[in-house]
């Protein structure tokens, strides 16, 4: 009897240990929230919320500092917008092509190469944006400044294509064959079937893919840090330098902001803005992906 009880105890202990490891992810999220919130709280003791949201300049390291988050948010939205203009349509087109048109062997070759696109380190993309794409674009757009939002935006877009295309493709492949056959049996072509039947059926999955793309673009750091410049500016002009929330944090950390100063706390203020933006999108994407599993 005794050794059975010992064994049961051991089983329970192991289960508890494994549960602790699983709870780690909850702990991490809580830590992120606590740290961002507490440091930001310190920040907002010194800077009013009104100034934070309405001031049009972000110059925390100047002698007369201004703490308006809008220029950084504008920078993030501008680069993200350009990236998504590239990534969402191309990602969807690639997904449709691979899911409905491409022959089997072509898929087997193309998919790993696309995955490679997502695996390239972002510093390398940053290098490419600054030293190859910008000079090349300057030949067509003479007004393009050396640091701008267009070049990193385009590179980010292409970098994000695999995220959008692979989740969209999974969603489309999950549409059962007999629905496709119903469309083909009516004399429809692959194009008609893809856009009139498959995409509407796979809608939640495709929406989830788009949201993953959005999240990824908002959170991208190195490409914009290298190629977009370090001057926050409230602009919608992609030909000028901008600074994103992410690039700003990098800029401060490379410098010498001592722990405890307002300048140091600004990075957490920027961080919590960033976290809230991506959190909203991530939750939406998670809910949408749960929905696909319900429909079939």
């Amino acid at each position: 009897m005794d050794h059975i009880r010992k064994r049961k105890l051991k089983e329970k202990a192991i289960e508890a240990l494994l549960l602790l490891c699983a709870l780690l992810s909850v702990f991490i999220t809580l830590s992120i929230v606590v740290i961002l919130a507490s440091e930001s709280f310190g920040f907002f003791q010194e800077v009013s919320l009104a100034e934070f949201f309405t001031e049009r300049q972000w110059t925390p390291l100047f002698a007369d500092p201004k703490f308006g988050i809008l220029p950084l948010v504008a920078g993030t939205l501008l680069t993200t917008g350009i990236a998504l203009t590239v990534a969402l349509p191309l990602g969807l087109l690639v997904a449709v092509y691979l899911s409905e048109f491409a022959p089997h062997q072509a898929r087997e070759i193309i998919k790993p190469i696309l995955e490679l696109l997502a695996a390239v380190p972002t510093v390398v993309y940053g290098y490419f944006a600054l030293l190859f794409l910008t000079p090349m674009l300057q030949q067509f757009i003479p007004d393009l400044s050396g640091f701008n939002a267009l070049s990193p935006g385009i590179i980010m877009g292409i970098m994000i294509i695999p995220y959008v295309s692979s989740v969209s493709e999974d969603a489309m492949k999950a549409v059962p064959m007999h629905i496709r056959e119903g469309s083909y049996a009516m004399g429809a072509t692959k194009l008609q079937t893809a856009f009139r039947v498959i995409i509407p059926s796979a809608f939640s999955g495709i929406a989830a893919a788009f949201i993953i793309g959005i999240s990824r673009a908002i959170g991208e750091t190195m490409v914009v840090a290298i190629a977009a410049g370090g001057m926050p500016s409230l602009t919608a002009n992609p030909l000028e330098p901008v600074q994103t929330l992410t690039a700003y944090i990098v800029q401060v950390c490379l410098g010498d902001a001592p722990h405890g100063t307002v300048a140091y706390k600004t990075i957490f203020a920027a961080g919590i803005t960033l976290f809230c933006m991506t959190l909203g999108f991530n939750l939406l994407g998670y809910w949408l992906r749960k929905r696909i599993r319900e429909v079939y």
Partner: protein
Amino acid sequence: MSDIKKRIRYNKFWNYLFLIIGLLSTLVGLLLLCVLMIDLALDGASRLNYQFLTSYPSRFPEEAGILSAWVGSFLVLLVTALAAIPLGVAAGIYLEEYGRKNWLTDIIEINTANLAGVPSIVYGLLALGLFVNFFKFGESILTGGLTLALLILPMVIMATRESIRAIPNSIREASYALGATKWQTVQWHIIPYSTGGILTGVIIGISRAIGETAPIITIGALTFIAFLPAPPLTPEFPFLSFQWLMDPFTVMPIQMFNWVSRPQQAFQQNAAAAGIVLMLMTLIMNGLAIYIRYRFRKKIKW
């Protein structure tokens, strides 16, 4: 009759047009990848030599090298792997084998899914507050390794869960029917059969971690490190030293970032060379992952 034929020709025209557009869209990404790699190679290949690989960074671009950077990358990734693998696999096992459908598992799942989408720089901020300031690990290899471990944890968990899910229930039932406990089943069946998938996921996670720059910058890794961390093996007892864990460090992507940010053309060439090494490391790891996935898929056919 001819009306239908006309309509069919119209439909098929658009169909064919889309085929071209779809193919071109797919090739855009592939084309960019090729151009990028060629550009990198053209810019930096000439700089790649033994001296480059074994020198410290320097104010003079011709004398600068990536020694401290790749040693730093290696050590940091070692810590990352040692931290992320047991924690991630354990979490994955719990969620697949032990978890019941209740609110707790739901919360864990939502969190894991959310963390996979959190920008890497936020992990840097977390590490700054938690490891550097709270635990007082400082701007060390330990901090860097743990930060990246947190970053790739969701990947390891997902890879573990998917590999475990692929194991058919009949195997589990066979094990239980012979009187095995849950842990015995996990130990002798679940873990061995899912090793391939887990390993693949880990390697892909590590290959992502190799290229991560933002979180490492945030915790304060310096960009000009002209020394190596303390060696792990010492001549005196106890022959093993952990001092290197607490040493300052730099990593490959940071070194490349540092050189790209300098205006001198010679430094940009260095950056390209560092980029080539970084790309090679990434390609090798991805190739390794694909190879392992292939080998394990051949061995175990459900």
